């Protein structure tokens, strides 16, 4: 039985630490941000720049008062944690406090300026695309019992191939297919190494990342540098959905996006359903939890794993295509910037479920977008520091949440028959 036994003291101490952290955050807000100069205001734009059917008035708020209120709210969360233990939901409380703190930073940075909330949130959704696809790739393969840390390599291969194919054939759609194929190819290699030859899964993943980085960098300098026609992909353009894009706020944020954003939302729902409701998903998870049990009821463990890894590679390939078909106008060396690893973090934080992974991806996307927004504001913070935000957030979130994770029982273990 899996009855979890704890010493009551340890849990209580942990909660007290959380509460203390929250209180510190609350105190930090006035100490760091209150400028004393009363009358500062911040303006948040709630409309898209492009003409909308319904216009919302701008949100104009007094900075100091808002900061005081936010600080009070954070402190209240901390006090609540101290007097009435929230148990398992302690991380949630800390998360809420952290969220309020971020709002405080934003309000403070916007003093005397104006920020488009629409652009900020739309950017967040857009930036979460590769992370969500990469995380889904991880979920698929690890739910079947194969650790896939090669996502970064699949991104690079996908981005490169998508760029070249979309340039040569002059179609973003073919580019996407190319990206998917490249991701799948790395998936096949990973599956071959880890399933067929039972190589160490972490080492195989690292090798494939190195391989993809090397090959794409080499080809970029040897081939694309002198041949710009091969590196000017036709890209997906923003495609507002009819009617839906006219909804106030939501319409501008969610429904004036590019194709891959819509695809991400659809894929998350499909994959969540497929993994947890269908026969296919049940079998896939059984292989990742207890392969011998799956084998004894006639499920082909190795084939199931193979397929999951390759399918995951295809998803990661889509994530890779985003870099050159939507985000940037061409492929450049190592342009994925470690997002494949952030995708792994999103998978863990999302507890190996597609919906969870996407929620985590949104968080990272938000950090990305916030960093971009803050860089444009007259904030006395170095821009390198701002650019590090997504990674800092990754660290904090992973450190705070991963301890209580339930990993698929056979994750990373090769299945050997006698």
């Amino acid at each position, binding site marked *: 039985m899996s009855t979890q*036994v704890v010493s009551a003291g340890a849990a209580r101490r942990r909660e007290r630490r959380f509460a203390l952290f929250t209180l510190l955050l609350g105190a930090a807000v006035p100490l760091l941000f209150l400028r004393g100069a009363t009358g500062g205001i911040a303006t948040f734009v709630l409309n898209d720049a492009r003409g909308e059917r319904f216009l919302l008035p701008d949100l104009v708020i007094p900075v100091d008062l808002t900061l005081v209120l936010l600080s009070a709210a954070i402190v209240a969360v901390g006090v609540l944690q101290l007097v009435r233990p929230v148990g398992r939901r302690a991380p949630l409380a800390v998360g809420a406090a952290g969220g309020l703190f971020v709002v405080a930073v934003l309000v403070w940075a916007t003093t005397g300026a104006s920020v488009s909330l629409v652009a900020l949130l739309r950017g967040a959704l857009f930036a979460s695309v590769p992370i969500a696809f990469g995380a889904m790739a991880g979920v698929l393969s690890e739910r079947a019992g194969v650790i896939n840390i090669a996502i970064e390599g699949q991104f690079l291969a996908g981005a490169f191939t998508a760029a070249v194919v979309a340039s040569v054939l002059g179609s973003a759609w073919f580019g996407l297919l190319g990206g998917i194929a490249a991701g799948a190819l790395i998936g096949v290699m990973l599956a071959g190494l880890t399933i067929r030859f039972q190589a160490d899964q972490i080492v195989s993943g690292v090798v494939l990342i190195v391989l993809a980085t090397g090959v794409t960098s080499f080809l970029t300098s040897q081939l694309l540098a002198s041949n710009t026609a091969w590196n000017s992909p036709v890209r997906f353009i923003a495609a507002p959905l009819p009617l839906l894009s006219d909804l106030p706020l939501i319409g501008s944020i969610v429904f004036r996006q590019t194709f891959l954003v819509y695809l991400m939302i659809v894929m998350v729902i499909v994959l969540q359903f497929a993994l947890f409701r269908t026969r296919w998903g049940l079998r896939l998870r*059984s292989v990742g939890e207890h392969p011998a049990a799956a084998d004894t009821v006639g499920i082909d463990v190795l084939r199931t794993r193979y397929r999951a890894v390759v399918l995951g590679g295809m998803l990661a390939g889509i994530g890779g295509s985003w870099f050159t078909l939507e985000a940037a106008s061409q492929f450049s060396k190592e342009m994925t910037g470690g997002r494949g690893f952030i995708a792994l973090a999103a998978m863990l934080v999302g507890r190996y479920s597609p919906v969870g992974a996407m929620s985590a991806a949104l968080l990272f996307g938000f950090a990305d977008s916030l960093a971009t927004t803050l860089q444009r504001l007259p904030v006395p913070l170095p821009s390198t520091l701002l650019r590090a935000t997504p990674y800092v957030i990754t660290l904090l979130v992973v450190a705070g949440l991963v301890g209580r994770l339930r990993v698929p029982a056979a994750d990373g273990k090769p299945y050997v028959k006698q």
Partner: protein
Amino acid sequence: MRLELKGVTKRFPGVVANDAIDLTVEAGEVHGLLGENGAGKSTLMNILYGLYRADEGQVLIDGQQVHFSDPGDAIAAGIGMVHQHFMLVPVFTVAENILLGKEPIDRFRRFDRRAAHEEVERLAETFGLPVDPSAVVEDLPVGLQQRVEILKALSRDARLLILDEPTAVLTPQEADGLFASIRGFQAAGRSVIFISHKLREHRDIADRITVLRRGRAVGTVDATAAEPQELAQLMVGRPVDLVVDRSPARPSEPVLTVEGLEVLAADGQRLVDSVDLTVHRGEILAIAGVEGNGQTPLVEAITGLLPIGGGRVLLGEEDLTGRSRKEILRSGVGHIPEDRTMHGLVGSFSVADNLVLNLWDDERFAARRTRRFDEVRSHARRVVKDFDVRTPSIATPASSLSGGNQQKVIVAREFDRPIRVLVAAQPTRGVDVGSIEYIHRQLVAKRDAGVGVLLVSSELDEVIALADRVAVMFRGRLIGPFPTPVAKEALGLMMAGVPAEEAMRGLAA
């Protein structure tokens, strides 16, 4: 179906697990398979089920030769198997586990939960094995998990059912229930291969018994005619004492004292509820009880595997409460854990390393933190010989030993170092009669040498054979201890929750 195995041979590195085995199971027969630990019973069954590939030999079903390349083929041919180690996905529900591989789906290719639950309920009713289809398997006690395994095998419409030590984790009542299902199954003209180390069970349920010894089939006998003594001898190759001789205990001062011990689950439930007990030097205090009544957390709290929620544990005068596992073991507590793969052994380590797992930095085996491999090896060679551990070599990884031999490695490790108290949880689970005899004798010898023994067992015969005093654990509380002898029936009643006085009185009347 009529099954014939002819000349089946399987070799593993260093051992011939099956050596030209012939075996015939008639339609409608319950065929017992008996043999020491490591005799090759599970291997033979895994070959029959398509999990292992035989090196030589043939399998014939109703006179036709068959080839199974994976379990799917065996299932299709009508063979079902309940494995010695559960083949259940712990995080799945009962229904998902039973129907895995043949799931009902609706028109959206969705796993059809309702149809699945109906199917499981129908099966449960047909075979008289009630289960809750929506329960998650890891939350179920082992007895119920076993039932799920059996239903899983039956649901595939097996005509030959292999049961590999199905009773090792069952209470006597559950075992009786299982036997009733087996008889029903047999009455429908189906065959069963039944593996157990308990001779009595073979005599109860089997028609014929085949005995394996060191990979060979050494004889097939009629179950009704077979005497336990004779079976044991056939199996071990020498006469075996099935009853332990022991002189009355001569207990002296208390050596292990537990006062008001509590263990709490994460949700605040009391797994162990203010338990007091005292073990004296030179006595065996046995705790009987149906599994899942708090024996496991009690043992784990005493031996430092679980945090103590309240109360004290004393070794002699020394307070062990809150000490680390290592300190507790080094201060003279021996522990035979009930779950050998989880707590007792490191499967990928060699037998030799496992034998010094809690002594590796002891000065006998390490000089200034550098290990003395020669000492470790010579120690292993001696212990393997003394305790008759069947292993191809001392360098073999523990995980490839048969279940019973894994248990012997643990017993040997704990018995071979100086201890004042021995906490033994289910020490003979899955162990053959020869080794049971050995382990029991060793327990009594430790007692006579002045060690205090705390024995936790769900096997009533074992409790009765060994206990100087006996207590029963029920829902986290300890009833007793009582001086022995206590009637087996009275213990049975207390295990089911009948208050002590009533249980004893009920028998007197």
